[in-house]
């Protein structure tokens, strides 16, 4: 006697505690095993590209913050680098050093949220609180520099809005001194925890060929085994002056390219960011950060594609200028938008509980998926 089964469609709706925002997943299930996942997005579409056609270049910078709200400094940096290339201006060296320090601090803050919420999704609530405790210290550093905790409007075209606070260097050194033992504590709590390894190793394996064909970038691509990082391979700003490594996935706990690898690449990237910040603090020169800001920003007619390495992947801005004070068109290539397409391939054959583990390891932010 054979049992007749039917496929069932389950909706993980826009309001769900584990979807990291307003994402709707339509799962087609055969029992508990998944046969198809269809993501529905657009619940946070805030018309960024339409705003870019009517706002002037400096007015666009606060809007770029709000796309990937966990990595606001890196978003601003990408846009500003593109406009500076169109204007053909060179910024003072002190500005470059401060931008790198802010971008790397922002990378650590963003990875802390990713790791903390990933632990909370899996069921471990304590690492969430520990990560947010460390993140508060970084937000403190940002607050004494520019006044804001989450969305800064700090990196301006040609310079910065404020210089560093006199206590900034001392407080950053204190933060680094306190953060290194906290990282070891996090590793003991979560990374080498047997339950965490059982839930994430060998889950959602992404082969390298598939990853490149789907346009995946960032820690997801590095976890599949390819050492590709825009800070070294298409270097921008002054990253070529610093000595740091690019961690890749090695399949230590399972296979290369599984969820544990994606998680561990982020933990190792935080250690490398600490190295960059230490070197930048030693080498930072003096200077005036607002000296290079032009009075009128009217680039020449042309188009440019500028890209930076965001904590989630490659963020690209395709800016077309028609010679006036507002851009003609700005198209944003958001890393989470491209990374999310591969979710269908990753989830086939797994169970419903694994969808949460895989989605947490992809690390999306809906603000930039929908723009």
């Amino acid at each position, binding site marked *: 006697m054979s049992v007749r089964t039917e496929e069932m469609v389950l909706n993980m709706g826009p309001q769900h505690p584990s979807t990291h925002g307003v994402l709707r997943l339509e799962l087609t299930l055969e029992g508990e095993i998944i046969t198809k996942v269809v993501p529905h997005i657009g*619940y946070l579409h*805030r018309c960024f590209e*339409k705003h870019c056609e009517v706002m002037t270049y400096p007015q666009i910078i606060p809007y770029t913050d709000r796309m990937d709200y*966990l990595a606001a400094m890196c978003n601003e940096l990408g846009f500003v680098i593109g406009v500076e290339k169109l204007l053909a201006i060179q910024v003072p060296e002190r500005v470059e050093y401060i931008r790198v320090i802010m971008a790397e601090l922002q990378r650590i803050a963003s990875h802390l949220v990713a790791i903390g919420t990933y632990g909370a999704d899996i069921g471990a609530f304590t690492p969430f609180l520990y990560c*947010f405790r460390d993140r508060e210290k970084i937000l403190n550093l940002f607050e004494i520099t520019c006044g804001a905790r989450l969305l800064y409007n700090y990196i301006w075209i040609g310079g910065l809005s404020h210089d560093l606070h006199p206590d900034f260097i001392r407080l950053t050194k204190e933060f680094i001194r306190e953060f290194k033992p906290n990282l070891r504590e996090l590793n003991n709590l979560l990374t080498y925890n047997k339950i965490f390894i059982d839930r994430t190793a060998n889950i959602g394996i992404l082969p390298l060929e598939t990853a490149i064909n789907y346009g995946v970038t960032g820690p997801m691509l590095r976890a599949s085994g390819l050492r590709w990082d825009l800070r070294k391979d298409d270097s921008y700003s002054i990253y070529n002056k610093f000595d740091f490594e690019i961690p890749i996935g090695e399949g230590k706990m399972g296979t290369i390219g599984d969820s544990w690898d994606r998680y561990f690449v982020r933990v190792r990237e935080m250690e490398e960011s600490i190295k960059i910040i230490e070197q930048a603090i030693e080498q930072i020169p003096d200077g005036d950060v607002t000296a290079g800001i032009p009075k009128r920003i009217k680039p020449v007619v042309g188009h440019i594609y500028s890209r930076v390495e965001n904590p989630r992947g490659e963020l690209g801005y395709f800016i077309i200028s028609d010679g006036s004070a507002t851009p003609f068109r700005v198209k944003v290539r958001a890393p989470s938008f491209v990374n999310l397409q591969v979710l269908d391939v990753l989830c086939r054959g797994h169970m419903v509980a694994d969808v949460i583990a895989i989605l947490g390891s992809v690390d999306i932010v809906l603000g930039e998926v929908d723009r």
Partner: protein
Amino acid sequence: MGLLDKEFSEGNIIITTTENLFNWARLSSLWQVSFGLACCAIEMMATSASHYDFDRFGVIPRPSPRQSDVIIVSGTVTLKMALRVKRLYEQMPDPKYVISMGSCSNCGGPYWEHGYHVLKGVDRVIPVDVYVPGCPPRPEALLEGLLKLQEKIRNESLSKS
């Protein structure tokens, strides 16, 4: 809390009105639906973390709207999402309260002029009790919004007019 504190320290008998008792019970344990839309959601998460604790006010996040009292609409409400917000609000049991957190859900925020897909304020679909301004509001501002809501509940009356 006035009458209630005094009685506890001196004896084991409390004298109060039913209204005060119900209002005190309601405002001391407001369970919220974990409903974060955009950037303000991160500040709401930071408020629930240990630095600016939400739990000391009795607020814990519940995943389902059917088990919660308050919905904190944090972030931009788009036209696609607005109908779902309305449905979530209708799924909550009475008495229910709404805190609108951030400029985007107060009035459309920075997207008020050219946003073709942004709902200019969540009060176009659900009734709002407290508006917290900011972009994003600091955790202290959200805590003050919560205290204002508690003020409002304290002055409620059981007989609905």
